[in-house]
C-alpha cells in the first residue's frame, strides 16, 4: 500500500500543479476555471489520501458544487470573450513581479518546510465527523459563530451591493 499511496500522491500532485498552471495562465477564463476544478479535485484526492474523507467531500461540495459555479456565473456576467483578452501582461516588469510573487513565498515557506521537518505520523487516523461536530459546538464555538456571521454578512452584503445598483440606476 505504501507504493500505491506514493503513486497516487504523485498523481494528485501532478494534477494539482497542472491544473493550477492552467488556471493562472490560460487566456480563456472558462478553461482557467477548468484548471481550477482539476486542482480542486486533486486537493480533494489528497484529503482522501490523508484519511480525511469529510474534508474531501466538503471540498467537492463547496468548491466544485458552489464556488466554481459562482465563478462560472461571474464569467458569464462579465462576458469574457471566449478567445480571451486575459493573459500575461506584456513587458518585463509585470512578469518579474508575478514571478517574484510566486518565488518569494515559495522559497521562504519551502525552505522552512524542508529545514524544519516535523515529527510526522505515517498513517493518519480518520476523525469521526461526530467529534468534529462536538468540537464545533464545544471548544470552537466562537470561530463557528464567527464564520456564520461572516457568511451572513457576505450574503447580506452581496444582496445589498447587487440591489444598490438597481435602485441607483
Amino acid at each position, binding site marked *: 500500500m505504501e507504493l500505491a499511496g506514493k503513486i497516487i500522491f504523485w498523481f494528485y500532485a501532478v494534477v494539482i500543479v497542472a491544473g493550477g498552471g492552467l488556471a493562472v495562465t490560460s487566456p480563456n477564463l472558462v478553461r482557467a476555471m477548468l484548471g481550477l476544478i482539476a486542482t480542486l479535485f486533486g486537493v480533494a484526492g489528497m484529503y482522501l489520501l490523508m484519511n480525511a474523507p469529510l474534508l474531501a467531500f466538503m471540498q467537492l461540495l463547496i468548491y466544485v458544487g458552489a464556488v466554481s459555479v459562482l465563478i462560472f456565473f461571474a464569467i458569464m456576467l462579465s462576458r469574457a470573450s*471566449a478567445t480571451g483578452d486575459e493573459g500575461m501582461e506584456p513587458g518585463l516588469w509585470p512578469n518579474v513581479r508575478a514571478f517574484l510573487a510566486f518565488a518569494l513565498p515559495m522559497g521562504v515557506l519551502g525552505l522552512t518546510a524542508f529545514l524544519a521537518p516535523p515529527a510526522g505520523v505515517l498513517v493518519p487516523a480518520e476523525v469521526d465527523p461526530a467529534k468534529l461536530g462536538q468540537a464545533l459546538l464545544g471548544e470552537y464555538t466562537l470561530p463557528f459563530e464567527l464564520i456564520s456571521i461572516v457568511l451572513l454578512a457576505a450574503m447580506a452584503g452581496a444582496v445589498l451591493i447587487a440591489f444598490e445598483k438597481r435602485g441607483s440606476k
Partner: protein
Amino acid sequence: MDVPFELVRIVIAILALAAFVGVNAVILVWVERKAAGFIQRRPGPYEVGPQGLLQTVADAAKLVGKQLFTPAGADPVLFWLAPLLAFLPIFVLLLPMPFGPTATGMEVNLGLLLILAFAGLNVLSLCLAGWGSNNKWSLLGAARAVSQAVAYEIPLLLSVLAIAFMSGGMDLSAIVREQGGWPWQWNLVLQPVAFIIYFVAAIAETNRAPFDLPEAESELTAGFHTEYSGMGFGLFFLAEYAEMIVVCGVAAALFLGGWRGPFGTDGWWWFLAKLYALLLSMIWFRWTYPRIRFDQLLVLNWKWLMPLAMINLLVTAFIMKL
C-alpha cells in the same frame, strides 16, 4: 505485488454499476416512453423487440453511429468535456448506494455526503456544455441551469440533513437499517415535509419536467444540448436517466426504507421496487404538468422550499435534542 481487496471490490462494483446503469437507463427510457404512450392513449414504442423493448437500444446504436459534430466557433475541449463530465460521476454517485443488505458498492461512512458532493458536477457539465457550444440558446440554457441548480441544492441538502440528524450519521446503509420493513416504520412517516421537499428539489436538480427549464424545448429549442449530436447528446440523455436513478435511489433509501421489506423479506427487490415506483411518479409528473416559468421556479424555491426545509430541520433538531 498483492492487490488490496478493497480496490478489487471497488473495481468490480464500478463494473457492475456500469452494467446496472446501462441496463436500467435502457429500461427506464423504455418505461418513460411507454408510460407517456399509455397516458396519451397510444401504444408507445412497439416495433423493435417485444413491445418495443429494444427501441432504446436501437436508438443508442443510431446515436453511436452519428457523426460527432463540433460547431464552428465552439471550444472543442469544453464542448466534449461536458458530456463526459455529466456522465462519469454517475458511477461514483452509485457507489455508496445500498441496493441490498450486502449489495453496496462501497460502504462509505459519509455516503450521503459523497453523493451530494459529486452531484454538483452535473451543474458544471451543463455550464460547460452551454458555454462551449457557442450558441445563444445554449448559453441561456446554461444560465438557467446554474441558477436553478444552485438554488435547489440548498433545500435538497437541508431536507437530507434532517434525516442525517435523525440517524446521527451519513451512512446510507445505516439509515436503511434503522428503518423497518413496514411503511409506518419508514422515515417518510416521520419526515413527510422533508420527503416532499427532497423530491421536488430532486426533480429540479435532474432538470425533469415541470422543472426542465435548462432544456425547455419550446423556449430554448433544446437549451444546453442544442448543438450536441450523436453520442454527445446520448451521454447527456443517459446521464439524465442515470441521475434520476440516483436521486430516486437516495429517496428510497432515506425515506422509504430502502431494501427493508415486511415479514422479513429484506432484499434488493424491495429497493428496486421502491426505486421504480419513485421513477414512475417522476415520469407521471412529466407527462401531466406544463413547464414552470423561471421566476416562479425561483420563487418556489426561495419562498417556500427553503423556509420549509429550514423550519423542518430546526424542528427535527429540536425534537432530537429532547
